[in-house]
C-alpha cells in the first residue's frame, strides 16, 4: 500500500474532491481559500508521488512540489489581501453576499 | 472615342469620392456652404470621370476594359483588381449620376450635421462604385460591406421617427447574407488553391470563372451568394427590410437605396454567382424563377393597399426587382439584357419617384396618401413630373420602364410561357397601384390637410427641378433609344450566357 503509486494517487484524488466540495459549499471567502489550498496540496501529493515512483522524472516531482508551494504562498498572499480589501468595503467575508453584479 | 491608355480611370472614379470625403473631414462643419459645394463638386467630378470612361469604352470588345491590377495581399493572391465591362459601365454611370443628384437633393432637407452627412454619402458612393468595378472576390466583398456602414448612418441619423429600428434591421439583414457569402468566397478561393496548389489568382474572378468546381461545392457556394444577393435585391421572402428602410431613410437615402443599392444584388448574380457556379445556377434557376414571380405579383398586390407613399414605392421596388432576377435566371439573351436595362431604368425611375415624394414631404411633412389630394392644382409642375415618372414606372412604351420589362417578358416567354403569363399580369397590378395612388395624390380637390398648409404648399423650386431634370431626360432617352444601354451590355451578356453553357431546360415547364 505504502509502496503503491495508486494508493497515493487515490488519496490525492480524494483530497482534491474534498477541497472541491468545500470550495463549492463554503460561504466564507477565507474558507474557500483554505479549500483551494487543500486542493493544491492534494495535487502536490500526486506530483510528488509521480516523481517518487517514476525513475524518468528523476526528482522533478519534488522540485515541482516546491514550486507549487511557493506559488500557493503567493496565491494566498494575494487572495488574503483581496479579502481584506473587500472586507473593508462590505464588512462581511461571506462571498455569496457579494452579488452586486449579475446577469 | 478617346484613348485612355495609361490613365487609371477606374481608380479615379472609385476614389474621387473618397478624396472628397477626406477633404470634407478637414472643413469646419459650420461652413455649410463650403461643405455642400465640395460634396456636390466631388459628385460631379466622379460623374465626369465616369462619362470619360464611357467615351473611351470600346463597345465591341467583349472583355474587361481599363483593367488595373495591384498586388495587395500576395500571401493569398488577393489583388486590387478592377475592370469594367458594359454592365459595370451602365451601373457605374447610374451610380455617379444618382449620387450627385442625391447630394444636390439633400441640400434642402438635411439641416443638421451636414458635413457628416456628406462624408457618409461620399463614402457610400465609394463602396457602390467599388462593387461594380471589382474583379477580385475579396475586394468585391470589402466594397460590398463598406456600403453598409454609411447607409446605416444615413438612415439612422438623418432618418424618420422609427429610424433606429429600420436601420438596424437593414444592417443585420444584409449582414446575415453577406457574411455567409464571405465564407463561400473564401471556400471558393481555397478550392482553387487546393486544385492548383497556388494562391495566385485564387480570388481573381477572371481566373476563377472558367474553373469547374464540383457540383456539391457549387451548390453550397451558390446558395451563400444567393442569400447575400437575394437579400440585397431584395427577393421575396427576404424583402421586409426594404419598406422599413425606405420609409425611414431621408429622401436621398431612399434614392440611393432604390437606385443603386438594390442593383448590387442583381449585379452580383450576373458578375459572380453565375460565372462562378454555372452548374448550381442551372439547378436552382427554377426555384429562383418561382420566387421572382412571387415577388413580382406579390409586391405589386401589396403595393396597392399601402397607405404611405414611400412604402408603396418600396413594395413596388420588390415587384420591379423581381423582373431583374426573373430576367437573369431565365438565361436568355433578351431576359438578361432586359434585366440589366431594368436595373438601370428602375434606378432612374424609382430614384425620381423618391425625389418627388421627398419634395412633397419637404412641404407637407407627411407622406400618407390619405392626406393628399388635388396636388395637380396646387403643385402643377410637381404633379406633371410625378405623373411622368409614375407612367414610366407603369411601363409605358416610349419611356424607360417599358423596354427592360418587355425584354424580360420576351426572354421568359421563350423559356416558360407560363412564367411569362404570370409575370405579365404585373402590367395590370402595376398600373392599379400607381394610378390609384396618383389619383388620390394629385386629383380631385385638395384635402383638408393640404388646405391648412395654405401658401406653404409651393410648387417645385429650381434646385428640385435640377435634380429631376437629368432623370426626366434619361427616362425619355432610354425609352426611345434603349440601344444606348443595350449596345453596351450586348457583348457581356453573350459572354455570361456562353460561360453558363447550355440553355435552361426542364427547369420549369
Amino acid at each position, binding site marked *: *500500500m505504502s509502496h503503491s*503509486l495508486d*494508493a*497515493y*494517487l*487515490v*488519496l490525492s*484524488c*480524494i*483530497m482534491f*474532491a*474534498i477541497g*472541491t*466540495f*468545500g470550495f*463549492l*459549499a*463554503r*460561504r*466564507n*471567502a*477565507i*474558507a474557500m*481559500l*483554505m*479549500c483551494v*489550498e487543500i486542493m493544491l*496540496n492534494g495535487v*502536490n*501529493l500526486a506530483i*510528488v*508521488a*509521480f516523481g*517518487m*515512483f*517514476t*525513475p524518468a522524472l528523476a*526528482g522533478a516531482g*519534488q*522540485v515541482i512540489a*516546491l*514550486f507549487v*508551494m*511557493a*506559488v*500557493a*504562498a503567493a496565491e*494566498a*498572499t*494575494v487572495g*488574503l*489581501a*483581496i479579502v*481584506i*480589501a473587500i*472586507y473593508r468595503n462590505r*464588512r462581511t*467575508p461571506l462571498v*455569496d453576499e457579494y452579488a*452586486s453584479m449579475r446577469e | 472615342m478617346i484613348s485612355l491608355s495609361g490613365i487609371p480611370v477606374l481608380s479615379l472614379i472609385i476614389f474621387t469620392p473618397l478624396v472628397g470625403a477626406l477633404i470634407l473631414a478637414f472643413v469646419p462643419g459650420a461652413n455649410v456652404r463650403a461643405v455642400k459645394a465640395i460634396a456636390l463638386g466631388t459628385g460631379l467630378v466622379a460623374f465626369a470621370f465616369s462619362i470619360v470612361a464611357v467615351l473611351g469604352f470600346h463597345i465591341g470588345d467583349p472583355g474587361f476594359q481599363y483593367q488595373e491590377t495591384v498586388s495587395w495581399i500576395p500571401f493569398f493572391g488577393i489583388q486590387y483588381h478592377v475592370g469594367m465591362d458594359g454592365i459595370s459601365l451602365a451601373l457605374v454611370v447610374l451610380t455617379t449620376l444618382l449620387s450627385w443628384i442625391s447630394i444636390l437633393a439633400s441640400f434642402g432637407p438635411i439641416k443638421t450635421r451636414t458635413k457628416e452627412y456628406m462624408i457618409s454619402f461620399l463614402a457610400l458612393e465609394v463602396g457602390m462604385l467599388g462593387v461594380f468595378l471589382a474583379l477580385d472576390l475579396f475586394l468585391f466583398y470589402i466594397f460590398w460591406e463598406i456600403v453598409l456602414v454609411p447607409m446605416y448612418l444615413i438612415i439612422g441619423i438623418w432618418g424618420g421617427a422609427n429610424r433606429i429600428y429600420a436601420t438596424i434591421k437593414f444592417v443585420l439583414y444584409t449582414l446575415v447574407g453577406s457574411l455567409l457569402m464571405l465564407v463561400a468566397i473564401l471556400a471558393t478561393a481555397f478550392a482553387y488553391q487546393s486544385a492548383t496548389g497556388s494562391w495566385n489568382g485564387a480570388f481573381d474572378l477572371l481566373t476563377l470563372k472558367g474553373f469547374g468546381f464540383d457540383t456539391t461545392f457549387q451548390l453550397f457556394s451558390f446558395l451563400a451568394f444567393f442569400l447575400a444577393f437575394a437579400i440585397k435585391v431584395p427577393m421575396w421572402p427576404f424583402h421586409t427590410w426594404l419598406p422599413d428602410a425606405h420609409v425611414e431613410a431621408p429622401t436621398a437615402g431612399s434614392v440611393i437605396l432604390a437606385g443603386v443599392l438594390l442593383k448590387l444584388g442583381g449585379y452580383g448574380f450576373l458578375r459572380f454567382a453565375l460565372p462562378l457556379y454555372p452548374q448550381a445556377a442551372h439547378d436552382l434557376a427554377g426555384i429562383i424563377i418561382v420566387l421572382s414571380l412571387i415577388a413580382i405579383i406579390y409586391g405589386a398586390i401589396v403595393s396597392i393597399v399601402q397607405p404611405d407613399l414611400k412604402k408603396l414605392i418600396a413594395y413596388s421596388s420588390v415587384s420591379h426587382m423581381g423582373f431583374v432576377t426573373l430576367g437573369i435566371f431565365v438565361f436568355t439573351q433578351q431576359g438578361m439584357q432586359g434585366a440589366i436595362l431594368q436595373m438601370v431604368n428602375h434606378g432612374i425611375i424609382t430614384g425620381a419617384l423618391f425625389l418627388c415624394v421627398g419634395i412633397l414631404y419637404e412641404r407637407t411633412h407627411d407622406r400618407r396618401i390619405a392626406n393628399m389630394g388635388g396636388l395637380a392644382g396646387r403643385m402643377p409642375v410637381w404633379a406633371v413630373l410625378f405623373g411622368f415618372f409614375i407612367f414610366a414606372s407603369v411601363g409605358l412604351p416610349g419611356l424607360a420602364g417599358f423596354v427592360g420589362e418587355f425584354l424580360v417578358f420576351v426572354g421568359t416567354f421563350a423559356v416558360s410561357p407560363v412564367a411569362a403569363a404570370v409575370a405579365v399580369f404585373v402590367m395590370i397590378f402595376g398600373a392599379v397601384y400607381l394610378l390609384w395612388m396618383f389619383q388620390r395624390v394629385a386629383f380631385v380637390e385638395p384635402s383638408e390637410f393640404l388646405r391648412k398648409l395654405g401658401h406653404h404648399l409651393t410648387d417645385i423650386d429650381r434646385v428640385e427641378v435640377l435634380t429631376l431634370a437629368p432623370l426626366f431626360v434619361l427616362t425619355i432617352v432610354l425609352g426611345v433609344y434603349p440601344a444606348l444601354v443595350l449596345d453596351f451590355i450586348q457583348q457581356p451578356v453573350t459572354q455570361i450566357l456562353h460561360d453558363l453553357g447550355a440553355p435552361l431546360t426542364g427547369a420549369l415547364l
Partner: protein
Amino acid sequence: MALPQTVPYLGWSWDDIVFLVLAGVLLGSSLMVVMSRNIIRSGLFMVLAFAGLAGFYALMGATIVAAAQVLIYVGAISVLILFAVMLTQSKSGPASLVFHSQAWAAAIASLVVGLLLVMSVMFTTWPLAMPTPIEQSAHDVATLLFRDYVLAFEVISLLLLAAVIGGIYLARRDIIPDPGDPLTRLDAASDGEGP
C-alpha cells in the same frame, strides 16, 4: 529497539500502518476543514492536514519536500490565513450558515468529480511507474532546481515579489480621505452602481 518486519498479528508492513494512520489524519482533518462550523477551527485542522501531508512526503522519501511542507504550509501559509481570519472575524460574529444553499449539489458534484478522478487513476497503468518509490538524493533535487529549472526558480522570486507588492497595496489601509472630498464620493459610485 528494532521493530519486527511486519505488524504483529496483522501481517501488515509498518509503512502500511503509518500510511493508514496518516491517511486517516489527512482525510479526517481535511474533512474537518471543510465541514467545521468555526472558521478558526477549520484553520487549525488545515494545519493538521498539512502536517499529515508532510508525513506522506517523508514516507515516500521526499524529505526535502516534507521539510518545505512543514516550513511553508504549516509555518507560513497557515499563519497567514489565520491572521486573515482574525482580521475579518473581529467585527461580525461567526456566520449562522456555514454552507451555501447549494451544498447538496456541491456534494454530489464533488463526489462525481472524486469518483471520476479515482476511477481514472485506478483504471490506468502508469507506463513509467515503478512499484516502489525511488531513492532521490537532495543533491539530485538541488541540481534540478538550480540547473534545469533555474529560469523557473528566478521567476518564482518575481512572482513572490509581485504578490508582495500587490498584497501590500491592496491590504494597506489608506489614509481615509475626507468623506466630504468630492473625489472619494464620486469614486464610490464610479462603476456599475450608477443608473
